Each structure stands twice: as C-alpha cells, then as structure tokens.
C-alpha cells in the first residue's frame, strides 16, 4: 500500500491530477508506531493521576505479578490494536491544489485543505522516524492551533518535494504584485529608507508605567509562591512589632479601624507596584521606535534585550486605541496594531503596541495604517438603554437583594451596610458600560467604542471580517433590537442592543464589501 517510494521519483506527478483521478493512499506502515505513541500519550495524559496509587500499591503488585503482567499485556494489546486501526483508517489523497485526509476509527473525520490556504509547513521527525528517515508533515492554516492537518509518516524526499511544491505554488501566486513593485523600486534608489513613524521618550515611558500597571504580570508569575511569601512578610512585620492578623481581627478592632488599616496598606502596596511598573515599562520600551519600510512596520525597543518586531501591513487586522481612566487624566492612550490571534498566542513582545501616545500622534498613526479612515471625526451611535435594564434586572438586582438581606439576617448589619458600596459600584459599571458603547461605519471601515471608565476605540476595514453573527432574544425582537458580533482574525467584537435595522445593515454592508472587493485579509 505504500506509494511513497514510487512517489519519490516523481513527487509532483500526483499534484497534476484532478480530484476524480487521484487515488487514496496510505502512509508508510511506520506510522503505526507514531499512532501507538500518540495513543500511549493520550493514556498517560488521561491516567496520570493513577500513578501515585500505583506506586503505593507496588508491594501488592510484587506479590501478585500474574495480574499485573496480565493488565500490562492487555494495555499493550489495546494500544497496538488502536494504533493498527488508526493506521488502517488514515488515508490521504493529493490532487492539483488540495490535500484531503480521511481518518478516525469510530468517529470519522474528512478534511479538505486547499494548498493556497496553508500558512505554515513544518516537518517533524520523532526519534523513531530517524533510522528510516521518515517525517511527519504538518500543514497549518490561519485557523487556530490543533486544527492543522498532519500527514504522518512520509518519506523525507517526498515530504520535502511536497513542501517545495506548496511553497512554490504560493510564491508563484503571491509574487506577481511584489515583483512589479520591485521593478518600480529598481528604477529608484535600491535601498528603501525607513520612515520614522513614532518614537517614545523616557518621560513617555514613565507615564506609561504609571498609567499601565504591568505589575499584574509579575504578580501572576509569582502566584505559586504567595503562601511562602506571605508567611515571610508576616514574620518580618512581627519582628518589627506589627501583628497584622491582630490588626485585622474583627474581634479586637472595630470595622472602621480595620477599613482604615486596609486602605493605608493598599495605598502603600499600590505605590510600590507603581514604582515596579515604571521600571518594567522602561525595561521593555526603552528607546522605542516605530518605523515603516515599504509595507512593513518595524518596532524596536528594550533596555537590556533589544527586541525587533516587524509586521506586514497587510497582516494588520484591527487598530485599537486603548485609554483607561488614568490615561484619560494624563491625555495619553496605547495604540495596538492587532494581528492574527488564532494560530499562535503571540507573546507580548511580539505585539506591535505604541505605548502612551498623545491623541494627535495616535490619529496620525491610525491614518497611516488605515488610509481614509474617519476615526477622529466620526460620530458614534449609542446603543439602547435596554442594555442597562437587562444587566440590572438580570444580574444586579438578584444579588442586590440577596446579599445585603442575607448579611442582615446573619446579624451582620455593618457588613450589610458596607455591601452597598460594591453594589453601587457595580451598578455604576453597568451604566458606564452602556455609556461608553458606540458604533459607526463608513464605506470602508467599522468603528467601535467601548469601555467602562476608560475608553477603547477599534477601527478595522470591512473586508477583514471573517464571520458575522446576528443575535436576538425574544424580548429584543419585540423591541426591535439586536446584537451583532463581528469576528476578525484578531478576535471578535460585539455590539449589543442596537437597532435591528442598523444591525442588519452593518452585517450586510460588511459582507457585501468583503465579497465584492475580493481583497485578501492578510
């Protein structure tokens, strides 16, 4: 059944066939080993918690080796059986422009992947493939992780040839426009100069550190050590004559004093955090520059390690201007160029973010990235007031009744009274959320505004849409309202509680733009 060897001689021959001519093929039998390892891994992952009892029972097993051997053989047989079946049912078919994979023993899967959708090709060689030089060919699309196609166990020359074919196909397709660009460029000076778009000074970074507490990142990393750390801190404080548990014991102090202590302690910790945060900001963003070279954005920054990240402008999905309440007071905002999110979780260093720019600088940058956008002048439509009522009645009201009442009944009238503070804060959040929500659209772009106390603005081209969702509950239908969700490769944005005709028009225009313009989204 192994057609690989024949294929090595003329690897591309199958790729000229049409789908109807192409034949289903099996991979090399060495794949059985691959599947066996996969099944074993699955078992190990599922039953990892059984290992400690096994170790405990080890003595018993030693006394009764027959049973243990029986179980082990059974397990081995099961794995072998599963691997054989998986191998038997794994088939692929190559034809001009597409790879198809049929797999699955009980649950069948049939995957169709056009070559021009492949973003990334990886060759993987587990150790047991090495002697016979087999590889596992992994084809990634721009969809998300774990959705890739895997052709397990192809001979290396065949896999390489296939990879080359797919890459060539992509280049021949995408190279057309760049080559004309290059020709034009050759008549001009050969080296295209970088154009400086933005630059951050140390003062900007200090402002960024104050308004964006990056400390939460550190705190998250330190989470496993909290207990030890807390013990150490308490010990130290006790040595200095401060007994924290006693200070916060309601039996010894009144609630008011405890509140005061808590407040001052929080302030102190916040101050420390802010200092750390400024330090973190300077470390990451020192010497920040954003350049534009041809159609690429290049970000350089870092005090100790210089990071250089570049992004093709066509990969940009959405521009986000994020301004939290502190940023608003300082008149600054963070500008994010959001790219594809699905394929791999892009680390913070890989993102292109311009920290703490002024409004004017931000609008200049947005104008460069999204030509003809009207973000700075557009008037946003408000969403319906029903948004407030929904969240107040559905979530807030039950809690607002139950929480103080139950505290009161438990003889905690002070706590019941205090609970009004977080409750009113929550209600304020809901109202602010409604107030901040806004949407607008012009011929080419969508604009969305949202936030609580701070504001985030999003601006993205209509043709970047991946999928749209229209949502409407029975009550919303009666009020002529709807919610829409616009899915981009960088994430989804929802606009809740808007006029039904507006919502439908938003979706319809977006779909029309993307289908009619036929522009690539990346």
């Amino acid at each position, binding site marked *: 059944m192994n057609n690989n060897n024949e294929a090595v001689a003329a690897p591309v021959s199958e790729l000229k066939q049409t789908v109807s001519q192409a034949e289903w093929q099996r991979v090399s039998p060495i794949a059985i080993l691959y599947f066996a390892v996969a099944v074993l891994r699955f078992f190990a992952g599922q039953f990892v918690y059984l290992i400690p009892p096994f170790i405990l029972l080890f003595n018993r097993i030693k006394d009764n080796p027959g049973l243990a051997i029986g179980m082990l053989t059974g397990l081995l047989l099961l794995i072998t059986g599963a691997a054989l079946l998986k191998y038997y049912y794994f088939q692929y078919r190559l034809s001009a422009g597409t790879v198809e994979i049929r797999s699955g023993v009980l649950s*069948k899967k049939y995957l169709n992947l056009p070559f021009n959708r492949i973003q990334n090709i990886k060759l993987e060689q587990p150790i047991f493939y090495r002697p016979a030089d087999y590889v596992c060919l992994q084809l990634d699309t721009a969809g998300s992780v774990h959705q890739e196609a895997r052709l397990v166990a192809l001979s290396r020359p065949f896999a390489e040839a296939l990879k080359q074919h797919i890459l060539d196909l992509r280049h021949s397709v995408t190279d057309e426009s760049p080559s004309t660009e290059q020709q034009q460029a050759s008549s001009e000076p050969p080296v295209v100069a970088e154009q400086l778009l933005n630059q951050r000074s140390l003062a900007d970074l200090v402002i960024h550190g104050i308004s964006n507490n990056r400390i939460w990142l550190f705190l998250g990393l330190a989470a496993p050590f909290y207990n030890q750390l807390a013990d150490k801190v308490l010990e130290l404080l006790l040595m200095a004559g401060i007994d924290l548990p006693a200070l916060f014991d309601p039996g010894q102090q009144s609630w008011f004093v405890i509140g005061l202590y808590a407040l001052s302690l929080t302030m102190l910790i916040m101050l420390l955090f802010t200092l750390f945060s400024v330090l973190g900001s300077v470390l990451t963003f020192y010497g920040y520059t954003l350049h534009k070279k041809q159609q690429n954005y290049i970000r350089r920054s870092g005090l100790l390690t210089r990071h250089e990240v570049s992004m093709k402008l066509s990969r940009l999905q959405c521009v986000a201007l994020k301004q939290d309440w502190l940023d608003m007071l300082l008149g600054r905002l963070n500008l994010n160029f959001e790219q594809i999110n699905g394929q791999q979780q892009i680390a913070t260093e890989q993102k292109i973010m311009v920290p703490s720019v002024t409004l004017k600088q931000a609008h200049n940058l947005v104008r460069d990235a999204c030509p003809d956008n009207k973000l700075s002048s557009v008037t946003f439509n408000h969403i319906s007031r029903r948004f407030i009522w929904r969240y107040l009645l559905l979530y807030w009201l039950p809690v607002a009744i139950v929480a103080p009442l139950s505290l009161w009944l438990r003889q905690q009238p002070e706590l019941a009274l205090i609970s009004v503070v977080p409750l009113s804060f929550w209600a304020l959040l809901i109202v602010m959320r409604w107030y901040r929500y806004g949407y607008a659209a012009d011929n080419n772009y969508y604009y969305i505004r949202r936030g609580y106390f701070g504001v985030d603005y999003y601006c993205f081209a209509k043709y970047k849409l991946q*999928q749209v969702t*229209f949502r409407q509950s029975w009550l919303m239908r009666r009020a002529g309202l709807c919610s829409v969700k616009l899915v981009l490769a960088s994430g989804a944005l929802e606009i809740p509680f808007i006029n039904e005709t507006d919502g439908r028009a938003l979706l319809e225009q977006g779909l029309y733009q993307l289908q009619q313009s*036929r522009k690539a989204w990346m």
Partner: protein
Amino acid sequence: MSNAAGFSNNQLAVEQITPLQALQSEALSSRYRLLRQGVNAGFFAGLMLLIMLLWWQPWWPVPADLMQVITHALWLVPLFGVLRAFYCWQADKNKHFALREHDISYSSGIFFRKMITQPVVRIQHIELKQGPLERKASLARLQLFSAGGALHTFEIPGLSLTQAQQIRQFVLQHKDALQDEQQQ
C-alpha cells in the same frame, strides 16, 4: 454534483442581494432530530436502570442518606429526561441553514435566536465529521474553519451525508475560495 452544474457566480448589485433576514432557510435532516431523541432517551433510560438497580438490589445495604437521594432521583431523572427531550425537540426544530452565492448561514435558538454567517471567501479548510451513531443514520456534521479562531468554527450539525457533501463541493468549487489569496 448537481450544485456544480447550475453554479453561477455573477456579480450582484446590493439591491439584488437577498438580505439575510429574507433567506429561505432549510431545516436539518429529520433523522437528526430522531437521533437526538434516541440518544436522549437512551441516556436517561440507562441512568434510570442504574438507579432502579441500586434501589432493588438485595446484596448491599444502601446507606440511609443515599437512599433518600435515590428516592428523589426516581422521579427527578425521568422528569429531566422528558424536559430535555422536549427542549431538544424544540431546539432542533429551530436549527436551519441557508446558502447564498457567497456565504453560508446557520441559525439556531428558541428564545435567543442566533444567526451565524460565514463568507465562503474566508474559509480556510473544511471538515466533515461523523460519529458512530451519525454514521449509522448517514448524518454528518460540516465544520468550516476560518481564521476567526477555534471559538468561531462554523458548524452545521445534522446534515444528511449527501447534503453535507454537496455543500462541501459548493465551497470547494467556489471561485472566490481559490482566488482570495492570489490578490494582494
């Protein structure tokens, strides 16, 4: 494929496009509804059997606490089963899909209606999935993957196998689906 023969992809003016709300949506296969009812009935019958066994078995004295739970379960489980069956029946009745020249829509929900529209141009790859029971009933689930991420995988469940294959063919033969990446 019959779809392929009559396939056209002429450009349409906005006024000509059927708006999403006016789409003639198609219901899922009736076998899907029956299958879901069967699975539901099977699951709750199995659960009931287990509880009855616990209730009647003479070999092992059931603790008093557990006995109380069992007596309640004896009427709660069938009630849940019937409610779920009713819910599934209604929910499945409200699942529809519709095809336009350039996109596929799937709507669902009883009180909270939802319609997802997936433009064909943005489809990255296609999967046709069949569990063992679905295979028996020759049903299939069609998954269309876009770059929107795993959370936004477009899925139409309960299509008859031929229908699913036809839609897959429609997507694969869609001119835009192949042209998209070629234009920069």
